[in-house]
């Protein structure tokens, strides 16, 4: 099991107090491999939030041994994650890991994120770009939009995030409680807005360099025109959040 077999409470191993939350939309092809990898690495508490998929995502999740929350219609990643946080808060999980169903995230990186939580962070974000060498290929439009966004966020939060769109994250118990109520719900806001929200609320957010693979199956959920529109929306929301910019930013750990 976990290298740090028992945590502060002494009895329950760290892995059994951690919930892996997988938002999934039409991922029947890649989900089995992802769940198998999680299982063999010892992550037994996995919640797949099936967001109105039209394929057999929910059935594959159950076959893979995960718990399945089936939303009656599509709420987007934000709504799915809030569902996951609610579940985690009610079941008393101490930590949550957000993990993609498409096989882009590496199971081996999970302990590295959680280690930062052990060191006192509230949120650890797996970043593709924090490492010196660039390991992740992406399209031009998306790269440009993300660059713009990065600048905006640096201006607004007063600190640098290298990968604001990463969906590979670990959350502490207090952040689970916070997000069970306040996770941003709009399309694409699950990444950037949640990051800033956590900062504004005074939680400490750190980045951890990780490598991500190209998608195993299925299609990235974002098309270019929509992407641009939604980035504009996110920017507006960020600008309106700037008025709430708190003095606590100075406390955010680097």
């Amino acid at each position, binding site marked *: 099991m976990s290298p740090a077999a028992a945590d502060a409470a002494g009895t*329950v191993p760290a892995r*059994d*107090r951690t919930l892996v939350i997988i938002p999934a939309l039409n991922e029947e092809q890649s989900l089995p491999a992802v769940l198998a990898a999680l299982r063999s690495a010892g992550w*037994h*508490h*996995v*919640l797949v*939030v099936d967001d109105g998929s039209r394929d057999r995502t929910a059935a594959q999740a*159950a076959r893979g*041994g*995960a*718990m*399945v*929350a*089936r*939303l*009656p*219609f599509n*709420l987007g990643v934000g*709504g799915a994650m*809030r*569902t996951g946080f*609610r*579940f985690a*808060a*009610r*079941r*008393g*999980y101490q930590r949550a890991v957000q993990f993609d169903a498409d096989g882009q995230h590496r199971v081996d990186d999970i302990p590295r994120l959680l280690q930062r939580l052990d060191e006192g962070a*509230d949120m650890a974000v797996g970043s593709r770009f924090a490492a010196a060498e660039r390991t992740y290929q992406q399209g031009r439009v998306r790269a440009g939009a993300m660059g713009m966004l990065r600048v905006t966020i640096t201006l607004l939060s007063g600190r640098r995030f290298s990968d604001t769109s990463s969906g590979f994250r670990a959350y502490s*118990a*207090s*952040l689970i*409680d*916070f997000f*069970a*109520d*306040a996770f941003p*719900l709009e399309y694409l806001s699950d990444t950037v807005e949640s990051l800033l929200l*956590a900062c504004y*609320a*005074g*939680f400490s957010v750190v980045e951890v360099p990780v490598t991500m693979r190209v998608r195993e199956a299925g299609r990235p959920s974002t098309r270019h025109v929509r992407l641009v529109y939604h980035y504009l929306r996110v920017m507006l929301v960020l600008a309106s959040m700037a008025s709430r910019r708190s003095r606590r930013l100075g406390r955010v750990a680097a």
Partner: protein
Amino acid sequence: MTSLRVRLIVLAVALLFLLFIALQVRWRRLRARYLVLWAAICILVIPIVIIPAVANGISSALGIYYPPATLFLIAIIVLFAINFQFSREITRLEERTRILAEELALQRVTEDKPFSDPEDVASEPARPAAVRGGR
């Protein structure tokens, strides 16, 4: 200013609309609170349009030389306010629907729980309720 004919038409339209919304409420296609809203608007519109002195008086008070422009201005402001209020109500309704959807999903998790059973976690005492706003 406005001719008698125009005033009669507006009066007729306003009265017909009043009748129409009353019927909507009766057929349960409109909640009573919206009846109040739209009826109030109809009833306010009528004197402004029917009695030229009202529009003229408001116009000169506002410094508008062309009284019909006053009517447009009032209409635009009222419609804008109503629309904005509707956006707020839609936001609230959507939030409620979403919470219902999430709760439904969470109910179903416990019902058809698959192989892995988080018994050990479930038996732990739950944390105290969330503290809003972080630490």
